[in-house]
């Protein structure tokens, strides 16, 4: 099946068209954030303070890249394990985030929140850091530069390849895949 192309900001209607197992190519701007940046964002939300970025309709990429070599926009930039962000994801969705990219399974609370707020969880190929870096054309610092590889950066991407793991209907590709291929 041909991959679908999507560009943020994303809408509820667009999310409802996606199903677990779909392959997508993302174009436009996505934002990096890992554990430390999430912690800071959630603190701001709880204090009712403004965030350093507008999350509405946006895609967050769980990535901590290697340093860029001179002349390159970014170093190796594959996804990190998403489970570490489980505690923060429902609040991120409540604040308008529409999709997040990582690798590995999510908690029941995250899957419920995805259904409630009409969001999707996407996986990029874990360990394909060099291949994924090629789809990132430009990088700009947004916040928390002091966090180094954990800073929030705006990443301009072209045909960034991802697979839908959890959709708005409660489907989970990790469960469906195992069901289909398990022999024991």
């Amino acid at each position, binding site marked *: 099946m041909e991959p679908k192309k999507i560009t943020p900001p994303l809408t509820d209607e667009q999310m409802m068209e996606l199903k677990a197992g779909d*392959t997508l190519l993302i174009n436009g701007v996505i934002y990096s954030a890992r554990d430390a940046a999430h912690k800071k964002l959630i603190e701001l939300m709880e204090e009712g303070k403004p965030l350093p970025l507008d999350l509405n309709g946006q895609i967050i990429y769980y990535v901590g890249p290697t340093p860029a070599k001179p002349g390159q926009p970014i170093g190796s930039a594959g996804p990190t394990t998403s489970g570490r962000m489980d505690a923060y994801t429902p609040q991120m969705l409540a604040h308008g985030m529409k999709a997040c990219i990582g690798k590995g*399974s999510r908690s029941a609370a995250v899957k419920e929140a995805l259904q409630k707020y009409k969001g999707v969880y996407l*996986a990029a190929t*874990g*360990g*394909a850091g060099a*291949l994924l870096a090629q789809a990132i054309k430009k990088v700009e610092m947004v916040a928390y530069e002091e966090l180094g590889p954990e800073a929030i950066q705006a990443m301009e991407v072209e045909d960034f390849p991802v697979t839908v793991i959890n959709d708005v209907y409660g489907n989970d590709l*990790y469960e469906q895949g195992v069901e289909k291929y*398990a022999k024991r």
Partner: protein
Amino acid sequence: MKELEARQISDKVAEACERSNIYLGDDVAKALRTSYEQEESPTGKEALDQLIKNEQIARESGIPICQDTGFAVFFVEWGQDVVLKGGTLEEAINEGVRKGYKEGYLRKSIVKDPLRRENTGDNTPAVIYTDMVPGDEVVIHFAAKGGGSENMSTVKMLKPADGVEGLVNFVVNHVKEAGPNPCPPIVVGVGVGGTFDKVAVQAKKALLRPLGQPNSDPFYADLEKRMLKEINELGIGPQGFGGRTTAMAVHIEPYPSHIASMAAAVNINCHASRHYEIRL
């Protein structure tokens, strides 16, 4: 008596850090291609295709295979007839790590303290195991160990009565539980025997063996084959998308055991199984 300068060690270590993070070993590249040919799941096949392309891009562009360039782990076999000049072995290795991770534009992933979490800024200190061996040769095995797969590792004190079946179930169930998290297709390192601490080191050592090289003891070689078959029947598949290739290899490293114990450990490596050998 042979003399080695600490600088010689540092230079080789720096080279090992840089090269192994950019050039995936031939053994792993070959295993990925074999997995691609055998995979039945279309999404699994697509993931393997991306990993094969990723390895080529890394090699051609000098960008690390994976952004997690790892904890630097070393197993040193130090020939007893070799004298080290100009510093300690630990300093020499850490200096090499510092140099390699800086000059190779590798990620600095180590924090000074596990609870206070301030980055050391140079990926040191390394984890170093040293064995004294006969002769005048120094062999250093290096692994850049990723955090995602390391987090999916475990130790359990099995009972001697659990036997072969108990060990197989422990390993296979653990891989099942880890599911998509350690970036399959994985390499599974199994330690069995020894003490609580020793068995974990054995499991890590198992990951350093080149893929496609079975245990030299036919009993364990058969057990490796059986575990690999059972793991690949789990259906987790590449990246956990479902499929036939969950693991590319299972390596077991046994150690003599106490009469009351049967310690077992599983240490998982992702498909970017980065290992490198230095001989001096």
